[in-house]
């Protein structure tokens, strides 16, 4: 009788422990969402014009002179290419499974697409060359081992995942010095990069209080604090001001 009781207690304990330590499962069940817009206040500075005249194949893909989109202000007054992610607030021991699908970055028209993106630690990065001309991809990680590889023709290279969290890891091409991209390498999947509508959306958060940080390559960072309950959707807007 006592043996059965202790077995049941152990079994119940194991069940609770199992349920408690799969945050993914928990998140799926009752994940909260934080969403919002990244606004831009002030006059947007002119982006530098890129001289692509000596790269005919890429220059041909543009009807107006291409610019390096350092500050991309959308029509609705929001900022694109802002990396928004959960900086603090997640349980310290939480482990999130690395997605099997790779994150893709494409070199098209001698520009990286996307310019700003997120990737999880250990997740494969698929680097695509759609231009068919020589590009070299230099990842200038400080916490991650830097790499420098080339792609002489149309091809895709699958790079094994990064080992360390790094916000942000810059990419550059040396053959075309204007090409830049930035990757936010995180150990959790709670990130989002703003696009042409300036909005971000982070889903599947467990209930709690979080610091959300928005990173822009020129304007630095802005933070916001958000508290969410299970399955709740909260809005948190962030604003960058022109300097």
């Amino acid at each position, binding site marked *: 009788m006592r043996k059965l009781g202790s077995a049941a207690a152990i079994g119940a304990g194991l069940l609770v422990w199992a349920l408690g330590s799969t945050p993914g499962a928990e998140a799926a069940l009752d994940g909260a969402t934080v969403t919002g817009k990244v606004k831009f206040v002030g006059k947007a500075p002119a982006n530098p*014009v890129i001289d692509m005249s000596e790269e005919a194949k890429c220059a041909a893909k543009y009807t107006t002179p291409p610019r390096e989109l350092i500050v991309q202000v959308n029509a609705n007054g929001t900022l694109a290419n802002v990396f928004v992610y959960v900086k603090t607030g997640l349980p310290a021991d939480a482990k999130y499974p690395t997605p099997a699908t790779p994150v893709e970055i494409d070199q098209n028209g001698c520009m990286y697409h996307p310019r700003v993106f997120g990737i999880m630690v250990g997740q494969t990065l698929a680097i695509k060359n759609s231009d068919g001309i020589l590009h070299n991809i230099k990842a200038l990680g400080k916490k991650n081992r830097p790499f420098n590889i080339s792609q002489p023709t149309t091809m895709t290279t699958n790079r094994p995942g990064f080992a360390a969290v790094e916000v942000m890891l810059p990419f550059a091409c*040396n053959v075309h010095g204007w090409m830049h991209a930035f990757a936010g390498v995180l150990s959790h999947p709670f990130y989002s990069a703003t696009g042409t509508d300036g909005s971000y959306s982070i889903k599947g958060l467990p209930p709690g209080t979080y610091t959300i940080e928005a990173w822009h390559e020129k304007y630095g960072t802005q933070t916001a604090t958000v508290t969410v309950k299970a399955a709740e959707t909260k809005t948190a807007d962030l604003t960058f001001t022109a300097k």
Partner: protein
Amino acid sequence: MTWWLPPQASTFAAPIDWMFTAILIITGITFVLVEVGLVYFVIAYRNRPGRKAFYTHGNTRAEVIWTAIPAVTMVILGLTSNGLWVKIKGRNSVPANAYPIGVHAKQFEWWFTYPGADGKLGRVSPELIQETVNPTGLDRSDPAAQDDIVIRNQLHVPVGRPVVVMLTSEDVIHSFYVPQFRVRQDAVPGMNIRVWFEATVPGTYEVGCSQLCGMSHYKMRARVFVHTQAEYDAWLQQEAAKAKGASTS
């Protein structure tokens, strides 16, 4: 005699090619004589029944002759080519009125700085280097730099006028090489090297990087345009307007 060499497009090309051809003829004649001699000896002195080799340890007079003739030839070649070397590479031989163009080499692009209307190149500083916006590190606060025009992978020079290239490198050793000008000079980080030439034939040529500088070294090329002075002035004005337009847009 030089049809198989690259076309001659600078004032250096003809003297260099002449020197090259002269050396080729001298060494060519020597080569033919030695080879013919070798073949003749091998046939004439081959082993035949009853033949004996002629026993000798040498001949001092022969040694002296075939030491003196090459030595004198080398001295003559040295003296004639040194004059040309000094004229091309000598630090003091850059013409005083040479038109300055800044050439900044980096993995894997060539950046050319034109002095604009004031004819002077502005100060550059490596700390100011910023991709896309300021790839050569031009110090815009320097008055001489205000009208400088910076262009990627295109070298424009006027014909018939000495040009002096101020060669710099950002990272590793590159080499500025235009075969038709017979001009080649390594760009070394930490050094500011002057290279001068005078283009003689309008046309389009190519600068190739000729010192291994990394994995995309093979693609590190720029186009060279040699214009008449009038065309060059027009081009420069056009570029100045473009630069002005870009900075205010």
